[in-house]
């Protein structure tokens, strides 16, 4: 059973398109995150949700809009994709804020 699953695993799209990444966790955790890993492997938090409520928004462009329909799901929608959005996006969850995070397999987004 996959604890944190995100889809798709790979996403190749043209500049200007809109795309979504879905994430689901079956761990019963209260907190979910989106992290971005750039080409140098640096991991930066984008958003954090606690019980469906947005807690952290780390100065991410408005083109990125997370949505949490329930505490087991956190989706990421990206409008007007740019070349600089190319990265690996990881979804993660933890029992509470700031506790051990469990990561999904990542979505490698390539914007061409």
């Amino acid at each position, binding site marked *: 059973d996959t604890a944190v699953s995100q889809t798709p695993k790979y996403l190749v799209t043209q500049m200007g398109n809109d795309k979504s990444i879905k994430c689901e966790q079956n761990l019963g955790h209260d907190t979910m995150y989106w992290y971005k890993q750039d080409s140098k*492997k640096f991991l930066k938090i984008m958003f*954090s949700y606690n019980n469906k409520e947005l807690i952290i928004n780390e100065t991410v462009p408005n083109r990125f809009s997370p949505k949490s329909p329930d505490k087991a799901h956190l989706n990421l929608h990206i409008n007007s994709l740019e070349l600089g959005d190319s990265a690996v996006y990881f979804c*993660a969850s933890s029992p509470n*804020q700031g*506790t*051990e995070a*469990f990561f*999904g397999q990542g979505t490698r987004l390539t914007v061409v």
Partner: protein
Amino acid sequence: ELKVEQNPLFLSMQEGKNYTIYCNYSTTSDRLYWYRQDPGKSLESLFVLLSNGAVKQEGRLMASLDTKARLSTLHITAAVHDLSATYFCAVAYTGTASKLTFGTGTRLQVTL
């Protein structure tokens, strides 16, 4: 703002040798995590360190935490090729919006 620095960024070592990876952080915290990432894969939790002086060991890896020095170490004993991966430390800032802030990562390459 919490800053987390690791050194070295890249480490090439021979099998059988010992080495230590360092993780320094800038703000008071009593929770620190170590993760491993294999190329193209997700992040796997290795150690959870929750108090000053905490020491955890798993196989050839040992992690410790000194909250007064704001320092954690990941010691590798008698390295084997299977340990080749990127290792991240992550620190939880104890605030109202806790999150994990990741270090820069240390890419470990163990050669035969």
